[in-house]
């Protein structure tokens, strides 16, 4: 089997059309000429920016999970809850599938993404290639749709409004950190340039 591959051409992942990539990388998107799929996304200083966003994302992630998220005040009784308590309560009540699903989508996968990005980008920044980088990057790309923090945010708003008539809901400090985290994660997904990372990994490759 030959070990060669071509990176000046790209095949659209949605329609398989072969096309040449622009020689000059300017910020923005490259779309497929036939079906309009986004083939590549360039952003300026992608590596530095993604690294900074991933570090702040990780800090916000810990703050969001360690501090109280929401408190409920119903007739003088105050009930605190943290981010993780939503999956814990499902687990405790015997809904193992639901508990695992909520735990994985709101804790495990987002945490893994942030750690994986740091693990890959920090060494690459200094021209080093981390161990198992290819495996880590592959898992990072395939688990991406399963991190659902932004959906959890919408659910929080729905839950707060729903409880509005029967009890007072007090947003905890983690709520503010969590809102920021959503913004940081959105910015991170825009600034991250997978093709750049593959190129860097190629260059560092010692076969």
């Amino acid at each position: 089997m030959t070990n060669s591959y071509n990176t000046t051409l790209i095949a659209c992942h949605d329609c398989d059309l072969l096309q040449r990539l622009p020689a000059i990388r300017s910020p923005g998107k490259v779309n497929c000429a036939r079906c309009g799929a986004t083939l590549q996304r360039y952003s300026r200083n992608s590596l530095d920016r993604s690294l900074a966003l991933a570090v702040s994302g990780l800090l916000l992630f810990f703050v969001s999970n360690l501090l109280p998220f929401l408190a409920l005040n119903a007739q003088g009784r105050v009930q605190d809850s943290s981010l993780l308590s939503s999956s814990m309560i499902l687990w405790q009540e015997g809904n193992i599938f639901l508990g695992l699903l909520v735990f994985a989508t709101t804790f495990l996968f987002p945490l893994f993404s942030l750690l994986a990005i740091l693990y890959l980008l920090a060494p690459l920044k200094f021209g080093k290639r981390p161990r198992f980088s290819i495996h880590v990057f592959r898992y990072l790309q395939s688990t991406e749709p399963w991190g659902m923090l932004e959906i959890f945010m919408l659910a929080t708003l729905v839950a707060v409004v729903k409880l509005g008539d029967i009890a007072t809901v007090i947003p905890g400090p983690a709520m503010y950190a969590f809102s920021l985290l959503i913004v940081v994660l959105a910015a991170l997904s825009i600034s991250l340039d997978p093709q750049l990372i593959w190129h860097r990994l190629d260059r560092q490759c010692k076969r």
Partner: protein
Amino acid sequence: MQTLTAAEAGLISCHVCHALACRPTNSHGRIECPRCGAHIHSRIPGSIRDTWCYLIAAIVLYIPANVYPIMSVVWLGKGEPATILEGVVQLIEEGMWPLALIVFVASIFIPLLKMVVLAFLLISVQRKSTWRLVDRTRLYRLTEFVGRWSMVDIFVIAILAALVQFGSLASIEPGIGSLSFAAVVVLTMFAAHRFDPRLIWDACND
């Protein structure tokens, strides 16, 4: 516009790193991407069969998801379980229109849209239709993008359950409906992931 696909050029595009590898002439068994080592294939093997399997499983589970209560709110010892649709109606009756809209779109409209679109795409691919290729590809991307948002209702139940957990005043219990509904969301996500949109375009390359 020249239209040469990777498959016609004897190349395989890696779904992970997008490198283009040459297809070996004696290709028996698995081919690995020379760059990232993923198992690569010109088209997802068994794409149509697998997508149908996930989709049919999702359609079957969609029935208990709507018939059984998604959660029961027990308020001061009494309360009744509600299905997804009853939940939406309750919200409308309480005048919470924006919430009713969010729950309706996320829990009823999106799952139905996704299942109908996937079935339509599968049938049109099997019939080798060349009708509106670009629009059908867009439709696929749309279903892939919006599918995750159906999880909203599951998260709402989890948050409500956590908030009122120790309260003797009220308790919120997820029902069989929510379990089936979560399974529907996960299965349709698998189905969309397993569907290979390049099959849509193969009809015009033949």
